C-alpha cells in the first residue's frame, strides 16, 4: 500500500521519536511512504483563524501534492489531520474557495482537483491495513500493561469534518489497537478531552492543569502509560509534565507513548529503536512491566 506522507513539523522537530517509530511501523506493515518534502506546515489552525484564504491555499497545495502521488494523504499528527480535514472539507464543497486556493498557488505546478482523502495513521491502520494484518505481526504481547488511550481534540472534533458522522467507530480505534497488542485499555473521562496545548502560550498554568488532570485521572484508574496519536498532546503531556506536576502540586510520573511506538514494541522493535529512551518522562517502569529495558 502506498500513501502520500505528511509528517508535520513536530515529528521533525521536538518529537523526532514519532517520525522514527512511524517509519519503523510502516516498514513492518509494508506501507510505502511517499513523503511530501515540499509541503508546508498546515498552520496548525493559527493561520486558518487569522487568514482562512491563506490556509486554504497552503493546505490546498499539500492536498494537490498528494493528489499527484495518487494515494491517500497520511498524517501522524491530530492537529495536521484536523486542519487538513477542515480545509479539504470546504475545498471539496465550495467551488469558489477551491478556485481561490488554486489561483493563489498558480505557477507552483500544482492544482487541486478535490479528490484527496486525508487519513491519520490511526484510521489507516484500522480501515486500510486491517486489524488481522496487525495482529499477525505482533511478536511481543504487552500483556499486563494498562494503557489509557488519549485521543485529544482534533482527531475527533468537529466530527463533521473528520468523517466521524459516517464512521463513529473512529472514536474506538485506539482501544482496539491497545487490545491487539495485548494491553488493557483504561476507560476514563479525559480520553477525548483537550491536552491544553493550544493555550500553553496564552495561559500556561491553566493549560498545564488541563493536561495534568487527564493524566492523573488515567493514573488513578490504574494506567501505566497513555498513548496518543498527536505529537502536540505529547508535548503538553510528556515534555511539560514536570512543570504540570508543579502546577497541580502532585506527583504524576506517567509516561506518554506515541501510537507507532506502542505498535513498534509489539512488532518486536527495541525501545531504543523507537527512541523510547528519549522522552522527558522516563518510560522505564512501564517497559519493565513487560520485561523490556531501555
Amino acid at each position, binding site marked *: 500500500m502506498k500513501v502520500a506522507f505528511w509528517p508535520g513539523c513536530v515529528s521533525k522537530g521536538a518529537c523526532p521519536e514519532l517520525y522514527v517509530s512511524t517509519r519503523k511501523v510502516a516498514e513492518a506493515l509494508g506501507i510505502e511512504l511517499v513523503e511530501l518534502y515540499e509541503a508546508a506546515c498546515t498552520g496548525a489552525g493559527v493561520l486558518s483563524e487569522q*487568514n482562512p484564504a491563506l490556509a486554504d491555499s497552503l493546505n490546498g497545495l499539500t492536498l494537490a501534492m498528494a493528489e499527484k502521488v495518487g494515494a491517500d494523504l497520511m498524517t501522524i499528527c491530530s492537529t495536521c489531520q484536523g486542519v487538513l480535514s477542515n480545509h479539504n472539507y470546504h475545498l471539496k464543497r465550495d467551488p469558489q474557495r477551491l478556485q481561490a486556493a488554486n489561483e493563489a498557488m498558480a505557477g507552483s505546478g500544482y492544482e487541486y482537483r478535490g479528490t484527496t482523502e486525508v487519513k491519520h495513521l490511526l484510521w489507516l491502520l484500522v480501515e486500510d491495513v486491517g486489524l488481522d494484518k496487525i495482529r499477525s505481526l505482533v511478536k511481543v504481547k504487552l500483556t499486563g500493561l494498562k494503557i489509557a488511550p488519549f485521543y485529544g481534540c482534533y482527531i475527533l472534533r468537529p466530527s463533521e469534518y473528520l468523517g466521524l458522522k459516517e464512521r463513529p467507530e473512529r472514536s474506538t480505534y485506539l482501544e482496539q489497537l491497545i487490545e491487539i497488542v495485548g494491553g488493557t485499555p483504561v476507560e476514563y473521562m*479525559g480520553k477525548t478531552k*483537550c491536552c491544553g496545548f*493550544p493555550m500553553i502560550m496564552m495561559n500556561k498554568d491553566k493549560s498545564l492543569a488541563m493536561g495534568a488532570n487527564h493524566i492523573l*485521572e488515567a493514573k488513578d484508574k490504574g494506567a501505566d502509560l497513555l498513548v496518543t496519536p498527536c505529537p502536540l498532546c505529547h508535548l503538553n503531556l510528556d515534555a511539560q509534565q514536570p512543570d504540570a506536576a508543579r502546577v*497541580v502540586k502532585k506527583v504524576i510520573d506517567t509516561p506518554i507513548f506515541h501510537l507507532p511506538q506502542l505498535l513498534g514494541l509489539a512488532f518486536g522493535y527495541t525501545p531504543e529503536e523507537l527512541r523510547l529512551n528519549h522522552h*522527558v518522562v522516563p518510560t522505564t517502569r512501564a517497559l519493565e512491566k513487560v520485561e523490556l529495558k531501555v
Partner: protein
Amino acid sequence: MQWTVVVGRYSPPGEPQPKGELGGIFPPPYEKAPPKTYQTFKVDLPDHAMVLDALIAIREYQDESLAVRCACRSAICGSCAMWVNGHARLVCTSKLSEHSPGGKVTVEAPPSMPIIKDLVCDMSVFWKKNRAVTPFLENKQPIPDGQEYRVPNEAMENLIQEVSCISCGACLMDCESFAVNQDFTGPAALAKAYRYTADPRDAQTKERLGEYSAPNGVWDCTHCYECVQVCPKGVAPLDQILKLRKMAVDAGFTNNTGTRHADAFAESVRDSGRLNELTLVPKSLGFFNIPAQFGSLPAAFNLLRAGKLPPLIHHKIPHLERIKNIFKKIGGRFK
C-alpha cells in the same frame, strides 16, 4: 419498548436523601462537584422517544420527587441541557435509541456547574458571563432619518448562526477552558459578543474588541471544539470566537501573546515553509516578557536533556518560492 435510564440524583444537605448507588468523587477538574446517587429506572416508551420523555415518565409515574427543568420540549427554550452519557445535550432532542449504548442511558447534572437538585444545575454563572459581554446593541447615533436602521441583508447573514443560540448553556457545561478557569468568559457569551461586535449598527465595536481581547477573553479559549460538538443549534461558538480574534487583531489589539503567536507562526511558515519551534516560543511570549521567558526555560532544558530539542539549524523546505508566492498573493498582514 423498555429503556433503562440511570439518573444521577442529588439533594442538598438537610433534605431527604435519594437512595441508590453512591457515585464516587468526580475526577479533576470537577472534584468539587458533590458525588451523586445513581438510581436505575425502567421505562416503557416507543422507539422514537426522547430522553426527556423518559425523565418525565419517571417523574409522573415512578418518583415524583425527581427534579427536572424543562419547558418547550422542542429545542427552543433551552431549559433541559444536561449531561447524557457524559456530554451536554438537550434531552428533548436526544433520542433514547441513539443514547443507550450497552442498553442504558445515564443522565445527570453536569459537574462543571453548581448543582441545585437532581438534574437541575444553577445557571447563574452562565447568565453572569452573558451579561458581562454587554449582550445588546449600542446603536450608532443619531438614528438615521425615517427612525430606523437599515442594514444590507449580507451583513446580517453573517450573524444568523449566533442568533440561533437558545442560551441552553450546553457549550459552557462542556467547555474545557471553563473547567480549569472559572473566569473564562466562555463560548456562549463570546459567541454573543461576536454577534453584536459584527453588527453594522453597533457603535462600540472597538471598545468591545479591546474588552474581549483582555485576559479571560477570546485568547483563553483552548480551541478544543467541544462547544461546536455539543451545541444543539449549530451556533459553533468556537468559530465565532475565532472571528472575534481576527477582528481584534485587525483593529489593532495586537499586544498580546495570541497575536504574537500567530505572527511568529506565519513568519516561520512564510520564511521556511515549516514551523520553527525554537523561535516560536520566545517570539510568542514577547522578548521583553522576562518572567515568561524564564518560565519556559525548564521545559526547554527537559527537552534538551531528553535529546528532543528541535534542530538548532532550521532547514527550509525545497521550492520555498511556492509558499512565498501564496503569502505574497493573499498573506494580508502576513505578507
